[in-house]
């Protein structure tokens, strides 16, 4: 064959890197060192003697920990190989993780934070030495306040679910401060709100009431009114819900809650579709949070650290976690939590590198840019929905014929009925094309669900590629279902057997447990 190069086929011929690396313990060689520790100075040694021998009885470790012994390059190589065996948003068309799709985390923000001026700051340093950090925290809080419409903001939490916990913790403290702590024992949420709302409320001691949508998939106001009472502490809802449907009666929901003396808490973890369009305050909410790692472009770090921005009305402000950054003139300082505060929700000021990234992200976009984010996210979502609904066997239950905001919960029910190939199998097969794919939280209210959320970050060509891949898999499900069922084929590893993972006698959560449970295993 000679030039020119033939056209590429419609679908990318992907294969993920496969290094077949063993578990790191199998790479150990006695005596190798990965990094050396600074030596104890002779002067110190002379002064203190053998500190290990001098430890109180029983405190000196007898057998060294069985960590691997490896040269530095081998450790590096092992982890670089593993990294190639991982998709990040930077590598794939990462629209298949809705409700948690990753947008672009700009590289310039990585460069900005990579400086001792941030990484080598101790949180208890003289505030005079931390004016840059404090000012950025303060400014970011103020910008989040404007974006949410709320009065005060805390950036302390390290994830969306932690922020939801902070929401319910503040609500609990509020009712207690009002003497209604004992009385208000219920929290109302909806089945298409993120499960952490239900779970955090339960962890905070509340009984959880979960509402299902009306026939059209809209949150059911009448159902809400039926369950609200003087026992209600709060409603905790996501909007748009996981279906991508915006609750047009959200103001009425909030009013109804307020009507019984309950508070209204808004999980707007993912506010991509509504930035600059509508705000928590506009619907009357008392408290809300953003996932900074979803809405404000900080990277997701393989599952954290994230950052939650808790925004509250003035009435709730005294309950925010501490310490707080305060501005006096053009100086910034730190104030301990006040008497009503729920106290520390974590160490110090939250995930500071993320706060700086988020600050930079907002400052790269401004008001117009944020609005462009929202408009493009919904445009992308509705475009992708059109492409998906063209695939025979795919549907978008509820709110038929209506637009969605930033994501859609789809269903392969029809395809499943026709072929027996289900959504989870399709998801595994999608990895063969270099794509992530996620079904839904449990329970699967939408049958054979999948949830796509394009955000603003992916180009039309990429959305088309994603849709093409799903169309191809749907075709395979009809024509060559075995290919789907036995997937993956082009992946780092092959079909994995998960039956050991639920059996306490057989699971292996660490290498040492594995070696103990399977003494005859090779390498063990």
């Amino acid at each position, binding site marked *: 064959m000679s030039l020119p190069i033939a056209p590429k086929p419609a679908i990318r011929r992907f294969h993920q890197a496969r290094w077949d690396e063993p578990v790191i313990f199998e790479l150990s060689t006695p005596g190798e060192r990965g990094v050396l520790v600074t030596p104890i100075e002779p002067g110190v040694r002379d002064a203190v003697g053998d500190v290990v021998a001098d430890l109180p009885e029983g405190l000196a470790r007898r057998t060294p920990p069985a960590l691997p012994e490896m040269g530095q390059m081998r450790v590096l190589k092992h982890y670089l190989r593993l990294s190639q065996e991982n998709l990040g948003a930077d590598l794939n068309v990462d629209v298949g993780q809705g409700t948690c799709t990753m947008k672009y985390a700009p590289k310039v923000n990585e460069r900005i934070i990579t400086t001792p001026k941030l990484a080598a700051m101790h949180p208890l340093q003289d505030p005079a030495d931390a004016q840059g950090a404090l000012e950025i925290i303060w400014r970011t809080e103020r910008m989040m306040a404007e974006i949410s419409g709320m009065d005060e903001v805390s950036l302390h939490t390290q994830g969306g679910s932690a922020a939801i916990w902070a929401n319910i913790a503040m609500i609990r403290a509020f009712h207690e401060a009002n003497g209604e702590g004992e009385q208000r024992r219920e929290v109302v949420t909806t089945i298409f709100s993120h499960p952490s709302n239900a779970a955090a409320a339960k962890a905070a001691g509340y009984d959880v009431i979960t509402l299902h949508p009306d026939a059209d998939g809209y949150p059911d106001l009448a159902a809400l009114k039926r369950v609200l009472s003087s026992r209600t502490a709060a409603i905790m809802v996501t909007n748009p819900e996981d279906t991508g449907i915006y609750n047009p009666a959200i103001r009425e929901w909030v009013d109804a809650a307020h009507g019984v003396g309950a508070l209204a808490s808004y999980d707007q973890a993912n506010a991509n579709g509504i930035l600059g369009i509508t705000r928590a305050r506009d619907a009357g909410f008392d408290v809300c949070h953003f996932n900074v790692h979803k809405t404000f472009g900080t990277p997701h770090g393989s*599952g954290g650290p994230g950052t939650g921005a808790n925004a509250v009305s003035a009435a709730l402000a005294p309950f925010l976690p501490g310490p707080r950054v305060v501005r006096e003139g053009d100086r910034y300082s730190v104030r301990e939590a006040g008497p009503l505060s729920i106290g520390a929700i974590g160490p110090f000021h939250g995930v500071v590198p993320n706060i700086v990234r988020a600050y930079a992200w907002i400052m790269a976009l401004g008001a*117009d840019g944020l609005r*462009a984010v929202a408009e493009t996210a919904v445009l992308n979502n509705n475009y992708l929905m059109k492409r998906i609904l063209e695939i025979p066997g795919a549907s978008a239950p509820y709110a038929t014929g209506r637009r969605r905001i930033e994501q859609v919960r789809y269903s392969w029910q029809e395809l499943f009925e026709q072929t027996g190939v289900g959504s989870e199998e399709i998801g595994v097969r999608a990895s063969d094309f270099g794509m992530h794919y996620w079904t839904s939280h449990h329970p699967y209210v939408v049958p054979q669900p999948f949830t796509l959320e394009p955000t603003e970050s992916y180009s039309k060509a990429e959305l088309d590629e994603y849709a093409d891949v799903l169309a191809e898999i749907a075709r395979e499900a009809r024509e060559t279902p075995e290919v789907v069922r036995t997937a993956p084929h082009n992946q780092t590893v092959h079909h994995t057997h998960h039956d050991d993972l639920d059996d306490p006698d057989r699971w292996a959560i660490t290498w040492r447990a594995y070696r103990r449970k399977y003494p005859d295993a090779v390498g063990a």
Partner: protein
Amino acid sequence: MTDPHVHPYIPNTAPEVRAEMLAAVGAASVDEFYADVPDGLRLGRALDLPEPFAAEQDLERHVSGLLARNVPTTERLSFLGQGTYQHAVPAVVDEVIGRSEFLTAYAGEPYEDHGRFQALFQYQSLMGELLSMDVVNVPTYDGFQATGTALAMAGRMTGRRRVLVASDVLPAKLSKVRDYVRVHLDLEPVVPVDGTADVAAVTERLGDDVAAVWVETPSRTGAIEHRLQALADAAHAAGAVLVVGTDPVGYGVLTPPAEQGADIVCGDIQSLGLHQWYGGAHAGFIAVHDDPRFVMEMPSRLFGLATTDVPGEVGFGDVAYDRTSFAHREEGKEWVGTAAALWGIAAGVHLALMGPQGMRDLGEVLLARTAYAQRALAAIPGIRLTDGAAHLREFAIDVAGAGLTANGIVDALRAEGIEPGVPAGEHELVVCVTEMTSQRDIDRLAAAITGLVAASAAESADTLDTVAIPEEHRA
């Protein structure tokens, strides 16, 4: 977006594509997509935000300009600890967690995210070796959360409410833990003696309503608990769980709590390969024995080994997923979500680099420098150590005898570029040394405080002169 606003972060702001996509979905404008958002809820104006810096060079100059106002510990001599520690971070750690594939990943499956599963399984396993425990979670947010959850687990397992807090705990940690568990558990402090737990008092307070004994080692002031086994025996005799909050940094030389009866070991891994980040790099571990009663109470994800269709391939998956709120909403254990996976990967790389010898050397240098600093400061007239326990990395001094206050020392030494420690009372200063603190650094601190003491002595002599001796009696 009234005007076309093409932004590098938003490809489909390109006008032609935007028009094409609108046409494809049959929408006249983006506004149609918001049909469900009532007019009354629309903001109807532009957000009131500062003018942005669309050009990367301008953005960088702006934010870096703000950060340039920070003066980090690399430009100061820092003895600050109390939750965040200045340890050496090998460059390989930063390299690995800076890889786009790890940094920007989220929640893929064990296929396309095999690397993440393996890296986190290895983190669990490496921590397991360090702690001599068979089960370690994918990290939760921080050591505060880990401890709150560990106690909540004990509460659920025992169905009891009382928790005996046998050690001195960081106030912020206590605040978080108390608020976290207060619906389910009551925390009762049992005042330590000479820095460590009062075993007799704890034993006396134990009863069949006690869910857990909570020990912190090192304690708030760096004291190492040396009677864990006795505490464990007492707790177990009462049917209570021994929860040990700790910093894993010392277990290259120290006996891990699991070998002295701990049931749940928890804490923070910031010391294992994470920069200080102004306190913004914490992650919590919870370790238990391989006992389903404990494991099934853990809310975090647990990655486990699995086979695949191909012999010799190492596969992974979620262990006992049904525990989680992902699977069962409020019926799961507490909740799970985005936590601190990247820091877990970092800690795993760090432990792999350090190896057994590195962790041993590190533990030894920490013990030695701590002891050296204790001696150097206690040798200053009027300054004494607050307790006689063995210490790792932190210790408290009482400066009352020198006529100084903790805040006074801090203020005075900051003027010399030294952060001498964290005040924990009028006269108590908690001083922290790590492998980054050299003998010379410690000597410098001692000299600076000695100077203060001398100055204060001179001053009080003066004061004595002027105050105690009436004018007419003076020469």
